[in-house]
């Protein structure tokens, strides 16, 4: 069985960017796309947690930072990234202080650089999941073994 591709959601109001992103990255990642923040949140509610949500900053309706702040609240393990053509100071600072993004990418992107950043983002997510699984597994194993002893040997 081939290992499952990591789920990545890309949000941008320009369709050409969505198509570009999907075409360049779909060989390595399981790509989902949305044209607005609202659409992205609906898609996340439907499809479940992603490894990474990458978003354009300036979009009608919800901004990238607003969207990623919501993503942070609802899916805190998901890695967050802004991909924007603009580098306005306030937007940049909000990306850190509100959305707590892992990377800020400036458009137009260089494919190999973006690919590397996505790989890093996915690896960061995977590491978090791995730790979670180990802790959960350890807890279960401990509960099971403690159960075998009926708790009566606690003081041994």
């Amino acid at each position, binding site marked *: 069985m081939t290992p499952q591709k990591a789920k990545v959601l890309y949000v941008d109001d320009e369709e050409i960017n969505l198509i570009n992103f999907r075409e360049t990255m779909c060989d390595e990642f399981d790509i989902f796309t949305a044209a607005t923040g609202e659409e992205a949140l609906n898609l996340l509610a439907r499809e479940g947690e992603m490894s990474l949500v990458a978003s354009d900053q300036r979009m009608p309706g919800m901004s990238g930072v607003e969207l990623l702040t919501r993503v942070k609240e609802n899916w805190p393990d998901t890695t967050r990234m802004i991909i924007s053509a603009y580098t306005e100071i306030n937007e*940049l*600072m909000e*990306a*850190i202080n509100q959305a707590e993004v*892992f990377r800020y990418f400036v458009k137009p992107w260089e494919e190999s650089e973006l690919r590397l950043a996505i790989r890093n983002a996915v690896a960061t997510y995977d590491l978090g999941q791995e730790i979670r699984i180990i802790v959960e597994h*350890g807890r279960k194993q401990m509960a099971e*073994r403690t159960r075998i*002893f009926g708790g009566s040997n606690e003081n041994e």
Partner: protein
Amino acid sequence: MNKTRLLFIDDEEVNRINFQQAFSDDYDVLLAASGKEALELLAANEDIALILSDQRMPEMSGAELLARAREILPNAERIILTAYSQPEDIIAAINQGEVYRYILKPWSDAELRIAIMQAIERFQLKQENRSLLFILEEKNDELAELVKARTDELTKLQSMLPICSYCRRIRDDKNAWHELEVYLRLHSEIHFTHGICPHCYEMVMKEHSEIMPKKDK
């Protein structure tokens, strides 16, 4: 209780004094005037929970310093404090420094205090996770030992073995019958070395001499 240790880096002395005055009551504050000095302190103090750095400094920038700090103390949280901001500086702070907060100077003590508290909470949460992981592993090893000891004891304690009076085979807990040797091999840690007892030796030799009796004659 020990105070949480912070490292503050700024090339202007007045900022270092201000920071120390505002926060040394609640935190154990280390100060550095340059990136180079900061790297030395980082290497010597692995319990630093949070690094706060100015961005614009001669020689090494704040983002550069924090990128290197990530290699030395990857678990410490990072904050940039800066008076002037160029977009490139902020992007470097995100992508290289992986900062938790970006705060403009002059800072308000109240605001900075909240950011520091949040950063430390985050640091401690991650630290707790790591030690939980460690404790779990230890506890699990202990329990695994206990389970093994108990299992060994149980196999030894099963002293009532149903044995067939005729063929001497033994019934296991799944109602299957085994040769004595097979049973012991499966349910104990006994190893077998094979030989012949004097009684059987005599019997075997006798059979042999009966089968090949004419050899000597």
